[in-house]
């Protein structure tokens, strides 16, 4: 089942002579339940791609369809609602809200939808994330690895169709990186979570099902990592 389709996606910044093409006519599709790693040197356009997939930027040309819904055919309000229900985003620098505690940060996407938080869902999630005894802490009382686990939980709490991670281990030491990757793999394997991870780290890319390499805004390789 096709979950994500990207058609001729192009993003240019600036005007005239100063114009930069960050993403140049990129097309690919992702099946439901796939774990795709995206690699490329700095400035290759991979973060631009992820922002466009996550609906947080607007393309110069091209379309992004998540389960058949064209992200950029929607108005801002509909896109914002779609994003919080269908897309989970994890960033390198966590982007937690500093004045909210762990429980509030985790459940933010549900609270924005005006939902009550299911107790058992939250318990299971915090158990898996190893955050059960940290629920009342503020982000700055947590280690980097713990903060990243909160942001993974926040990305997953609304059971999104697609989870996107931009260098999720870029700011962590090797032990915490391994733990974060183990968590992501676990959600991928147990829940069939579709996962797109941008990374510099080949060891992380090798854990994916499929590896897409981007250079100068174009896809240069797209290969299966594991048969």
């Amino acid at each position, binding site marked *: 089942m096709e979950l994500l389709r990207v058609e001729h996606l192009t993003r240019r910044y600036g005007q005239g002579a100063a114009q930069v093409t960050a993403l140049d006519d990129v097309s690919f599709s992702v099946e439901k339940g796939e774990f795709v790693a995206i690699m490329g040197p700095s400035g290759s356009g991979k973060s631009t791609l992820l922002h466009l997939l996550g609906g947080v930027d607007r393309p110069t040309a091209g379309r992004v369809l998540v389960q058949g819904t064209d992200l950029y055919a929607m108005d801002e309000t509909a896109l914002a609602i779609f994003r919080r*229900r269908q897309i989970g985003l994890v960033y390198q620098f966590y982007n937690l809200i500093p004045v909210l505690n762990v429980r509030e940060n985790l459940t933010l996407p549900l609270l924005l939808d005006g939902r009550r938080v299911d107790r058992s869902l939250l318990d299971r999630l915090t158990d898996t994330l190893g955050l059960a005894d940290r629920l009342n802490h503020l982000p700055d009382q947590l280690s980097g690895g713990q903060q990243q686990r909160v942001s993974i939980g926040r990305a997953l709490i609304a*059971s999104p169709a697609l989870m996107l991670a931009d260098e999720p281990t870029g700011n962590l030491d090797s032990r915490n990186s391994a733990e974060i990757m183990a968590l992501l793999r676990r959600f991928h394997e147990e829940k*069939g979570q579709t996962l797109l991870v941008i990374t510099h780290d080949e060891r992380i890319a090798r854990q994916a099902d499929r590896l897409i390499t981007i250079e100068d805004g174009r896809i240069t390789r797209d290969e299966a990592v594991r048969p």
Partner: protein
Amino acid sequence: MLRNKELTGPLAATLALTAAAGCVCGALGGLAAGLAGAVFAALVGVVWLAVTARRYARLRQLGEYLASVYAGGELLDIRDNREGELSLLKNDLHKITVTLRQQSEQLAHDKQFLQGLLGSVSHQLRTPLTGMLVMADLLARPDLPNEKRAEFTGQLTAQLERMQWLLERLLTLSRLDAGCLVMDPAPVNLPALLRQAAAPVRVALELRGQTLELDCPEGPPWQGDEKWTAEAVTNLIKNASEHAPEGGRVTVRLRQDALAARITVEDNGPGIPAQDMPHLFERFYRGSNAAPGSAGIGLALARELARAQGGEVTAENRADGPGARFTLRLPMRPGAL
């Protein structure tokens, strides 16, 4: 819709309130005020009824959609991206129906796989049984010469051993699947493990006149399960022996660095045909030049035993001549690979 008590109750209340508003306004300000009050109250009631009717119509549509999905109908994208409870309900219904549909497809797939598996296993067991029944028949003849009797008995034993080998490996695979195969990590001397792994295959190698070369320098001990790792290596050597020609050579090498121990098993057979490459490690997959007695589970088992310890088995054709090379990588510390 009028049979719905949730609607008829409030409808009656609206009518009563309209009458009451008319009466109250009439009592306070005369006939005109009474009429105006009643009309105004009635208008409020009509707006309320219209909104409610629309909401109920949407709920009914959702109900009809669910009934059609239940009856096997097509899954539609019923989500819209609006605020509000009805939109949330649609979103959740969509997620649940998609998940259910996927699970039922997975179940159908599993069922098919199971049927294929049963077929393969029965086939693997029936083939030697047919030959064994013939030999048992022949053995039962009192006039069979003694040397024939010895030959048939030998063949019977060989077939029984093959069946035993097959069943033991199937059992190991099913224990791996069920997650009840316990790995028992301890410091392991890898050269000793490789010699131990080669031992069960020595007879088969000798029968085919093949030489086994072990190139295993001593290194730091590896932390892992000795018994099951040896089993994985035995399967790789057995596979190499089956593909090396008569009088051929099987080479086992051990190389260690800080990250991993790499055990390579090479043969000098015809190598792996390109069309077999993606399927080599699938259960019951028999390559185009598989040995006649091969069941297609040795490599699958080797890979799964390696993976259970964070390792991996990969296959390639040798660059330095004909033949295949299988590489078993074992992490020197957890997560190193």
